[in-house]
């Protein structure tokens, strides 16, 4: 046990000592936290600015925004009585309308195309427009055009708003606070990406660690002091701890956004931190690190150099990549057969099960079954990889082949 711990501590020290790992692993959540903090401060100011700027809009005596229109097809013969006086001004051509816009006499203007009846082309011209915060509402102008096409403003009003609906739900549904919030929508993606990145980053560390020790002959010394089982267990424990540390950095960011985001980041009132999902993420993450860390360590055992493992790395990580890409399916249909299959299959469950838990309450038996299957797969893969850590394999110096890797793993090498 002592030697295993020693290997683990050394691996932790070396990896955490690498600036690139710490910058990428912990720097990104830190940077995002800083961005969130800036957004929290600046959005609070923006709310006050918007309130102040409201009073500077061009208003007619009726309180409406003043706009203009250029009717290229002479479709508009009358303005319905409901339209407040002074709200809409006709201009002969676009130049006149643009001049009025530039002088601030109007906030915007419409251009009705000559063949509006057939093409429906309607341009809405403004000086500035933000795709983030501004919304376009041309309903009133479209209603005016409909009234002129029908020749009857009242009929147009009835057609525009055809029903006044009273809703009678026979079953009272539970109101989900924050159902439409961005953070609720983004939570499954966040959890998936967090686990995906953590597993890939930490397990990739092992490939280079093993190949580097082979290249600089430290492996010869190590094998004379520790058994292959102790070595790989120590390395895998280090990978697991690194992965959990990375996850904790992201969880800290998430908690910060929830606790301090407030109205500035449109966090819905009553949105609580899903501690249960986070706890399950640590469990699934741990076994994910074990599985993929072991496979990557096995790659390192066979390859003379890390650059020889690139194509095999892709093959080994393929299930995880596929699970990540299929997250849209899982989020859209979390109770479907594909989602269930992905969340139970050990190579994809770290990502898929957590993605499912982020959108629905997964039955406990499924969660437990997934953990059991993952644990069994982790133990099996680790035992297979330990076989690869035979001295003659580690020191052979043979060139790397993907086929030889999988054959050796299955005991046929």
């Amino acid at each position, binding site marked *: 046990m002592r030697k295993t711990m020693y290997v683990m501590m050394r691996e932790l020290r070396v990896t955490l000592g690498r600036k690139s790992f710490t910058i*990428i692993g912990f720097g990104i959540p830190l940077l995002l936290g800083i961005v969130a903090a800036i957004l929290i401060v600046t959005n609070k100011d923006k709310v006050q600015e918007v309130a102040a700027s409201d009073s500077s809009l061009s208003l007619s005596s009726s309180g409406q925004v003043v706009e203009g229109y250029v009717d290229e097809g002479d479709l508009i013969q009358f303005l319905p009585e409901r339209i407040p006086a002074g709200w809409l001004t006709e201009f002969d051509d676009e130049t006149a309308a643009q001049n009025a816009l530039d002088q601030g006499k109007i906030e915007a203007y419409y251009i009705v195309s000559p063949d509006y009846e057939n093409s429906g*082309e309607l341009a809405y011209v*403004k000086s500035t427009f933000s795709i983030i915060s501004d919304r376009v509402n041309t309903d009133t102008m479209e209603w005016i055009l409909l009234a002129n096409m029908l020749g009857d403003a009242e009929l147009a009003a009835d057609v525009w708003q*055809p029903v006044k609906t009273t809703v009678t739900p026979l079953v009272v*549904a539970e109101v989900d606070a924050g159902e439409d919030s961005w953070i609720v929508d983004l939570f499954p993606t966040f959890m998936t990406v967090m686990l995906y990145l953590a597993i890939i980053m930490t397990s990739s560390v092992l490939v280079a660690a093993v190949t580097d020790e082979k290249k600089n002959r430290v492996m010869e010394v190590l094998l004379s002091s520790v058994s292959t089982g102790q070595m790989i267990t120590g390395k895998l424990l280090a990978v697991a701890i690194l992965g959990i540390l990375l996850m904790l950095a992201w969880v800290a960011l998430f908690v910060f956004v929830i606790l301090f985001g407030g109205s500035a980041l449109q966090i819905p009132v009553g949105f609580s931190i899903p501690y249960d999902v986070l706890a399950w993420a640590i469990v699934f993450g741990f076994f994910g690190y074990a599985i993929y860390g072991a496979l990557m360590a096995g790659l390192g055992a066979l390859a003379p150099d890390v650059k020889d493992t690139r194509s095999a790395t892709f093959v080994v990580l393929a299930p995880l990549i596929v699970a990540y890409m*299929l997250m849209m399916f899982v989020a859209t249909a979390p109770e479907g057969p594909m989602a269930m299959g992905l969340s139970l299959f050990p190579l994809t469950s770290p990502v898929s099960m957590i993605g499912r838990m982020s959108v629905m309450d997964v039955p406990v038996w499924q969660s437990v079954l997934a953990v059991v299957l993952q644990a069994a797969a982790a133990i099996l893969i680790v035992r297979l990889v330990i076989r690869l850590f035979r001295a003659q394999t580690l020191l052979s110096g043979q060139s790397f082949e993907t086929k030889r890797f999988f054959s050796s793993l299955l005991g046929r090498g």
Partner: protein
Amino acid sequence: MRKMWLVARHQFIKEASKRSFILVLLALPLFLVFTIGLGFLISQIEKESATIGFVDHPGLLTRSLPASEGEDIELQAFESRESAISALDNDQIAAFYVIADDYFETQDVELVYNESPPYQAVQLFEDTVRFNLMTGEPDAIVDRMLSGADVTVRVTEANREFAAGNPTFANFLPLIVAAMIGFLVLTTSGYLTEVIVDEKENRTIEIVITSLSTGRMMAGKIMGAIGIAIVQLTIWVAFLVAAIWLGGNVLDIGWLQSIDPNWSDLLKVVIVAVPTYLCIAALMTLIGSSLVDNQEANQAGMLSMLFIFVPIYAFVPIATNPNGPLAIGLTFFPATSITTVALRSLVAEVPIWQIVAAAAIAFSTALLLIWLAGRTFRVAMLRYGQRLKLADLFSRSSKVIET
């Protein structure tokens, strides 16, 4: 010059003949195919299918309206509220409307359901009511009402147009190009940081250096790696075009149809991207020359890609103030210029002088880094296993090596 081209050609052939190169070449196209296929499948899954009942007391709905293409929604008439409730309880219908006797005076209808019906079903019912209210009107006016207006928002100060106020796929093309460059940086960073590893390991570097200068050698290596990048980018762009055609014309995905790219914006991104990639390539080579650890060198590539995407995190302030100091500053900084120009193009026209200035800064930085890479390589040539510090590059001992 000839020797430099020799080095470039050797580097290109060496990398292009590896199996991993084919894998990387196909990575993005396969991902595109997968994503578009997935999008198509999800849109098929999300197609709503429902039957909505109605009880028409005043006899309003004498004509029926078919559901929109691709939606499987239909309306079913019932004689009474009780028969509709029975159908609802048996899951034959998703919901039903009861049109009040005095509808023509009050417009009152009642919507009854167990679970809120899909939006498309509500829309079909309301359109059917509209359709019947406009009985006798010309077909063109009825079609116009039911289709709605084709609204385009024109923003005069930004010189931009948005369909219905929302950016379209064409507006996002510059950003897609920027993302492609980011992916290119990630996939080619390995080649760039390891340009001299093989020669160092098998000791041929000392022989090569007797034939040409370190500066020319590094320039040749960088050019070879850039050649690889150009091949990758060409294949990826061809696949992107093919994917857009397939998605729009065969799979009938709406947002991939009738794409009208703004070629001016795309050209601006390309003008900035070329020298910026050269700059990043030189930086990767410099890092590879100075770092001892292969793994650190590889992770440096990942770090560069992250820098390229920093403007994404600053999207809101950039989009809100596309000509502000933050946006302009990020445009001139080589690592972030590609993505910033792409993001700014989404909401405003980027002035030509800023594009030229950004390209000039990136190109000058690239030349400086290539020179520095040559110098680093020269100083580090005999320092096997030792990490090179910045001060070592300009110290007296490095000058001794030079002479």
